[in-house]
């Protein structure tokens, strides 16, 4: 069983974001990065599936050279090898990114492709599903559980409002994994040591010969949202702020 897990590196969750002078993207200086959280759960699901059924886990990542940090972490946690598409896809549309991922997988023929349901930066929630279309694979999204069954897989999909659904499909297939569905493992010292000897295949967008098709959607600008609501903020010591808040809740909002 060959399992490919597509992972992405994103700015750490609590980053203070500033808009770059171009107005097209955030200022990337001084930002710290980490694995996109849903992708960490996709990697965990891939590693667990391999432990149950054998085979190998290949980490696939499109990102700048600095994304090597996240790739090494995936290898330290147990991925067997990695493919790094060295291309800064930070502000790319999901079709452009998925085309790179699909091209890098051409020679791989995976049985199962996993990725997180969405990214914490762009938040399109599309790259995995687009990749399924480009690879002509059946797919399912927002997956909580997966198990092998009758030569294919059976997954538990999350629907809205507390509902779930089981779906069966043949392999090869692509799944996008929901965040928080299991406990994430830590890299062991042994794992970190082993990771240094594992293979990372580095390719560029040029190597993959993906045509840069003109997109029908262009990003005009990004900006910090204007407050649509006037929030009354209470300052001072915690005691003073709490007293002012209770005063307002009692006499202005009249909720207590």
């Amino acid at each position, binding site marked *: 069983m060959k399992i490919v897990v597509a992972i992405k590196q994103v700015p750490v969750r609590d980053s203070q974001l500033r808009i770059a002078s171009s107005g097209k993207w955030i200022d990337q200086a001084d930002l710290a990065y980490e694995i996109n959280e849903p992708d960490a759960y996709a990697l965990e699901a891939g590693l667990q599936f391999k432990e149950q059924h054998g085979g190998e886990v290949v980490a696939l990542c499109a990102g700048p050279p600095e994304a090597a940090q996240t790739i090494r972490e995936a290898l330290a946690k147990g991925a067997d090898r990695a493919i790094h598409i060295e291309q800064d896809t930070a502000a790319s549309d999901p079709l452009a990114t998925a085309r790179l991922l699909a091209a890098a997988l051409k020679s791989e023929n995976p049985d199962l492709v996993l990725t997180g349901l969405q990214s914490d*930066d762009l938040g399109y929630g599309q790259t995995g599903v687009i990749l399924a279309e480009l690879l002509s694979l059946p797919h399912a999204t927002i997956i909580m559980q997966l198990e092998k069954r009758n030569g294919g897989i059976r997954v538990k999909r999350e629907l809205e409002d*507390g509902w779930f659904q089981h779906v069966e499909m043949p392999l090869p297939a692509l799944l996008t994994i929901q965040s928080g569905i299991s406990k994430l493992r830590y890299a062991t010292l042994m794992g970190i040591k082993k990771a240094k000897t594992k293979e990372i295949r580095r390719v560029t967008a040029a190597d993959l010969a993906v045509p840069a098709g003109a997109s*029908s959607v262009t990003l005009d600008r990004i900006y910090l*949202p204007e407050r649509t609501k006037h929030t009354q*903020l*209470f300052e001072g010591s915690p005691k003073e702020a*709490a007293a002012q808040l209770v005063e307002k809740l009692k006499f202005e*909002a009249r909720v207590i």
Partner: protein
Amino acid sequence: MSILAVLEQRTTPAGPPEWNRMSFETLAAAQQFAAQLGVTASAAVVGSGIGSLAGELASRQLEKVYAVEHQLLKNYTPDGYVIALRQLVERVKPSLVLFPHTYQVRDFLPRLATALNRVAVSDVVSHRIESGQVVLVRQLFQGKVNADMRLAGDTPHFASLQAGAYRADQISAGTAAVEPFTPQIQPSDVRTKPLEVFRESQRAVDLGAAEIIVSVGRGIKEADNIPLVQKLADALGAELAASRPICDAGWLPMERQVGSSGQTVAPKMYLAVGISGAIQHLVGMKGSRTVVAINKDANAPIFEVADYGIVGDLFQVVPELIEAIQKAR
């Protein structure tokens, strides 16, 4: 040039198909786009046995209502929907196709757009028209940054609309011609097999009925700190709720989760403690009458929807707040 709204219905196990209520927000948006661009709006509903749902739309101001009907569309599958909608879009040739941003749309729309060599703009919160071009606004970085996306070049364009971004009560009445559309689908085209839809457990807690909700997020750091917010909830006579990560970690049961995958609430007061306010959480609570936020990050998106706020360490603020509430009551 025309706008097509693809509406969502769900086939219930017991009864006839029912609308997903977000469909009406999409319908209202389609009418607004059409009016602003000086073009017509039409609607489509996909499924099997959806004739009466399509008929309900005949009294709305639309050019046409397409009833996309096929036995293989009875239960939702991404393959079935992509094939059917691709054929409809190629026949109708709309310039912009709008969808509600539901879990189901997230499952098939990227595939549909890719099949037609397009990129869908997902989770749109608003729009404007600039010199005849549509500019869609979507959120990045969990709602901390907005992006303006301009639709240009070849049509059709595709977009999904965030829950609550458009108002369902602004639909214009009128008349529409209902037209059946039968797509060509083979059983072998549908590769996934959907099984039963189920709920894990009966919901013992109905957060929808609570007048005051105290809700806790990642900022609480550890399970051992939950009693602190429980004490705050007790002081207010409130129900305790949580954002998704807290329920995923098992610190509170899933039935107390507020957000797109949990419950949608609109209490008199919603007090968010250590919740940054990711989009998925905000859609579940932004209808609350009074929103209060306590968070250490002044730029957290929760303050976008808060009426009152304290920027500070919840571990210092909450004990003081409990004391002040007890004094005030």
